[in-house]
């Protein structure tokens, strides 16, 4: 026992520690129960479901080997379609997100009746899945990559807008105040203090989103936005598994290429102005 002139304070500290330990145990237990319940509900513990799974996967893998690249001259157009969908969709989404994110950031726009609805709009854009956006835009403006671009932009605006707003909220106010004391206006503070501070995060998140959008653009092909996705799903429907696997390898190469490009861009933007 510790000698102290404040036994009550010591007892309170120890009681607080016991309560925190109890809460940690309780919360951990609740999370574990929720996770197990999710597996049970999804039927993950139903052994019957796994019978024959391995042999089917082995069969499918066998059927798609070796990959068949023989139709490659016909892939140029869908490849470019998917790539351009991802580039245009990301750029459009990032541009909207920059404006929406600035309005949503609590330290940039201080009028709550403007920031609140904008945060709600960003939540809405984000909570509608990309595929649903795809179905909606295909219905609205017809088949093709344009519907895909708009679908990607809608979802990207929601996601990037939230990121940008949070990044803006964490900007150091000191350098901006220094500029203000030298007579620099609001726009100048954004340009010379805020932008240099958030640029690496902006580039980083946007590059990550581009990579995500390339995969999303492929999926959008399934609902009518064209591109590589349409080729892959058609190959599957025709049981051309060897061609489908070749297309997936092409997609993998494209994603890796973008990753590489992203890493270089990030490295560049982490240095000076």
């Amino acid at each position, binding site marked *: 026992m510790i000698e102290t002139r404040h036994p009550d304070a010591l007892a309170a500290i120890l009681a607080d520690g016991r309560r925190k330990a109890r809460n940690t145990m309780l919360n951990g237990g609740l999370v574990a129960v929720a996770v197990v319940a999710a597996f049970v509900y999804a039927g993950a513990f139903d052994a019957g479901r796994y019978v024959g799974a391995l042999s089917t996967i082995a069969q499918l893998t066998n059927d798609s080997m070796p990959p068949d690249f023989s139709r490659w001259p016909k892939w140029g157009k869908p490849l470019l379609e998917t790539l351009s969908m991802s580039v245009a969709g990301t750029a459009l989404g990032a541009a909207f997100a920059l404006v929406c994110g600035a309005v949503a950031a609590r330290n940039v726009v201080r009028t709550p009746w403007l920031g609140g609805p904008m945060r709600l709009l960003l939540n809405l854009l984000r909570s509608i899945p990309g595929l649903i956006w795809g179905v909606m835009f295909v219905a609205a403006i017809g088949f093709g990559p344009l519907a895909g671009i708009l679908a990607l932009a809608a979802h990207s605006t929601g996601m990037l807008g939230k990121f940008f707003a949070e990044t803006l909220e964490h900007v*150091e106010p000191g*350098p901006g105040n220094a500029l203000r004391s030298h*007579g620099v206006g609001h726009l100048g503070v954004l340009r*010379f203090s805020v932008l*240099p*501070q958030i640029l690496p995060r902006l580039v980083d998140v946007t590059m990550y989103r581009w990579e995500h959008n390339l995969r999303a653009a492929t999926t959008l092909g399934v609902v009518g936005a064209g591109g590589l996705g349409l080729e892959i799903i058609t190959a599957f429907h025709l049981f051309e598994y060897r061609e489908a696997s070749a297309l997936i390898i092409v997609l993998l190469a494209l994603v890796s290429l973008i990753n590489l490009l992203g890493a270089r861009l990030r490295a560049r933007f982490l240095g*000076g*102005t």
Partner: protein
Amino acid sequence: MSIAITIDNLTVHRSGRPVLHDISLHLPAGSITALVGPSGVGKTTLMSTLNGLLSPHGGTVVFDGIGRLDQPRPLREARRRTATVFQDHALIDRLPAIDNVLLGLADTRHPLSPLPWSGAQRRRAAQALDEVGLLDRATARAAQLSGGERQRVGIARALVRRPALLLGDEPFASVDPALAERLAAEFRTLVARNGLTVVLVLHQLSMARSLADRIVGLGGGRVVFDAPAQSFGAADESAVFRTFPDTKEIPCSVN
């Protein structure tokens, strides 16, 4: 070129509460004034009024030959000729030292200009870095610099403006005492070479005595003490002691 400033019956409110009451001071051109006093007496508020971040609720601040700060045109001109050094340096960590110094010239550039900093501006920034002895660290990011180097960059960012009035809000508070002494000595040389009017918030009386020509004590938003630094004697010390009974660090640092 230094500048004289006259503060007349200045009253400033913050969040609806008066922080400065009826302050009157004349700061001659080329003088170095130290503002001392415990936290919350309005030292930073007075600085923020001098650089136009806050506007007075009563009284005037007049820059000699420029005009009153409560009028837009003189305010613009006064700010153009003022530079501030901050306690926490207020640097952008990921930018190189030279780019942080260039930020001192941001008011000379249009915010939407896509052009990079000009060669003349870069030369001017390099010169300012050279003045504080950091030219060899120009391309190092602010985050990689030591506390003393960061403060020197902060001073260079102020000097690059070629100001007439230099404000310093506890400019040596975030470095250790030995380094603070060295920076203060360098600072004095720089100020003398450039012939600036200087106002510094300092919380160490010893530093105020060695750096300033004049020591102004604030208490409860009023001037409670105003004397030349050379004549600052034992009686003044006890006056300061009486004025700031809760601040141990101030009397302790007088030796």
